[in-house]
């Protein structure tokens, strides 16, 4: 029997959503300060309006839904999904007021793309955007990479059991430390350390590329945020092509590969366990699939005579494949080149890489290396079983921080999420085909949205139909939260309508 949610359930969800929304408002102070620093008065007003809207909504929810009760699993999941949706609506206020978007839906699209570290954009005239708005764009993708709930847990939560349920609701389940609040702080420590190092490296690279010191600093910071979070945002329309710098490309590759690794792996390495990088199922899976997809695309590009020499071919192919596989979406080719310049085989390599994605509990999206590794191990196990006597007990293990015996529950969980990802990839492609787009761009951009990659072959633009934008927003949201929270929210709404 389906039980209709009680008033207290709404109160709990509202109360914790309010806290997360206040967190979003607090984060907006950074772009506000940036705007004030560069005397960008009009964008500063946009952020004041955005901050006030977040505080009014957040405090209003907290006061209306005041409760001492802790979150149960259902509340954690529903709150995670609901708060992401509400944060998107409110976060889009400065975007829309900036005048760089054709509609509020477009602004919401870019915000969801940022939070989910996708990187698809509908922004207009990006080359004339203010420093404040660029700071907001990149900051939200940086925070989205760690997870908005991780931000809120770090600063605004006291209890640990409920906080853990929220944390899981955001598609993360690794505990780096026994306490979830300490785990959230450890994630921040890792990210901020890399921000300092990576930002400094990119600053130097930009200076060497011939940019002014202030622009080098800002662009260094923003490209780091975009790359580390595997978001793929950049402050100029040409994305990474703007810099014409192999050094910038090289540094960003390192940053997004590291960013796509599991935070548990980072923490393990930080504690001196360097062998974990070599042994972990996710790094093994990642390097294997990167090699396979790279070979596929390489062969495709050779067949198409796309580049004049092997060096050029390797440079373009490797960058795009790693960017796709880590679900970053930074590009060193123009979007339409995927269709006009690359051939089908090369594009298929990119699509496979995007659909697999990075590591679980990382900033990356996609099916994840852990699940691909588990499914592969399960397949090997089953083949092994066929050739063994009936009485034989076959034990398959995989290494993820520690040795884990492969059980049916692991395979079931990995299969369910993989099927769900395949489902949304298909959904986006079908919607694209329905609107008359060819198969390749429909599938390419659909996989990109669903896996939170952000590479595009030109289909995603402000002129695309509103329904497609809404479908892509849903795909980015569902893909980032790994479905369970979205299913919980839909179930909650269904229970309200049909429950007793």
């Amino acid at each position, binding site marked *: 029997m389906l039980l209709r949610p009680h008033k207290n359930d709404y109160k709990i969800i509202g109360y914790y959503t309010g806290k997360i929304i206040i967190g979003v408002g607090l984060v907006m102070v950074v772009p506000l300060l940036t705007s004030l620093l560069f005397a960008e008065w*009009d964008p500063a007003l946009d952020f004041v309006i955005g901050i006030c809207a977040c505080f*009014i909504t957040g*405090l209003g929810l*907290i*006061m209306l839904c005041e409760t001492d009760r802790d979150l149960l699993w259902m509340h954690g999941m529903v709150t995670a999904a609901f708060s992401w949706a509400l944060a998107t609506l409110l976060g889009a206020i400065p975007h829309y007021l900036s005048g760089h978007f054709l509609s509020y839906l477009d602004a919401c699209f870019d915000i969801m793309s940022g939070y989910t570290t996708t990187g698809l954009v509908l922004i207009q005239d990006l*080359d004339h955007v203010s420093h404040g708005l660029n700071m907001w764009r990149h900051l939200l993708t940086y925070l989205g990479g760690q997870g908005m709930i991780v931000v809120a847990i770090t600063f605004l939560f006291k209890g640990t059991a409920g906080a853990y349920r929220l944390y899981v609701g955001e598609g993360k389940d690794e505990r780096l430390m026994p306490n979830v609040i300490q785990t959230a702080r450890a994630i921040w420590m890792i990210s901020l350390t890399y921000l300092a190092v990576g930002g400094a490296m990119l600053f130097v690279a930009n200076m060497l590329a011939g940019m002014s010191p202030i622009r080098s600093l800002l662009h260094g910071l923003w490209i780091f945020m975009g790359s580390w979070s595997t978001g793929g945002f950049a402050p*100029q329309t040409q994305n990474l092509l703007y810099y014409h710098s192999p050094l910038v490309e090289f540094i960003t590759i390192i940053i997004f590969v590291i960013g796509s690794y599991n935070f548990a792996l980072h923490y393990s390495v930080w504690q001196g366990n360097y062998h974990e990088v070599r042994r972990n199922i996710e790094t093994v899976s990642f390097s294997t699939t990167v090699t396979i997809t790279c070979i596929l695309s390489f062969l495709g590009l050779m067949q198409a005579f796309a580049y004049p020499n092997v060096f050029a071919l390797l440079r373009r192919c490797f960058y795009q494949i790693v960017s796709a596989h880590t679900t970053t979406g930074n590009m060193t080719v123009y979007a*339409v080149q995927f269709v006009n310049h690359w051939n089908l085989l090369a594009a298929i390599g990119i699509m496979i890489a995007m659909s697999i994605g990075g590591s679980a509990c990382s900033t990356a999206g996609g099916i994840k290396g852990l699940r691909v590794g588990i499914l592969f191990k399960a397949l090997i196990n089953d083949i092994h079983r066929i050739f063994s006597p009936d009485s034989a007990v076959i034990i398959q293990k995989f290494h993820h921080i520690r040795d884990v015996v492969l059980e049916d529950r692991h395979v079931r969980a990995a299969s369910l999420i993989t099927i769900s990802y395949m489902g949304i990839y298909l959904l986006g492609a079908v919607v694209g085909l329905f609107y008359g787009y060819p198969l390749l761009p429909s599938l390419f951009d659909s996989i990109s949205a669903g896996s939170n990659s952000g590479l595009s072959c030109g289909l995603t633009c402000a002129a695309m139909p509103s329904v497609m934008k809404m479908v892509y927003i849903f795909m980015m949201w569902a893909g980032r939260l790994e479905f369970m929270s979205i299913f919980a929210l839909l179930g909650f709404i269904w229970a309200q309508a049909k429950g007793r």
Partner: protein
Amino acid sequence: MSSRKLILFLITALSALSIITLSSCPAQATARLLSSDTLLCQSKQWDRQLVRFRGEVIGDIMLRGTHCWINVNDGSQALGVYCPTELVKPIRYVGDYRYSGDIVEIIGTFHRACPQHGGELDIHAEALKIIRPGARRPHTVIIPKLYLAMSLFSCTLLIMGLYLYRKRLKPRRNKWESRGSRPGDN
């Protein structure tokens, strides 16, 4: 120098000058004005051809020794233009939040995948002409937006005050409830 030799020298010099001028002018004159969309979509057709491309210089002029990179946006897409440093000297404004960049016309060789620059799609400029100088972009504060910000800010302060008041009151309320009475009940 005899007058005959002088005349011969002048004729040779003039002929050489004419050949140089004629060899460059017709090519530049015949270079077709193309948009970024055309260049990107028909990149094979225009590969290694002399093209004319017009747009706004955006972002930075990135000096790299004797040459430099600029990015030129024609309203649809920005393309990278690689050119000798002396060509960019007339550029005064580059497009960003505060300025509209100079509108320039580039004549140069288009590369679908430039062998010199790791397969990048670019234009190697041979000539650059300022079509229209850039200017400061007007950014005025919109008054209704200012009023909206002020009213929302006041509302936020009010709600924050109410929240803090309730928060301050809460321990007292809990204390009264634990005692089972409120002040004034007696």
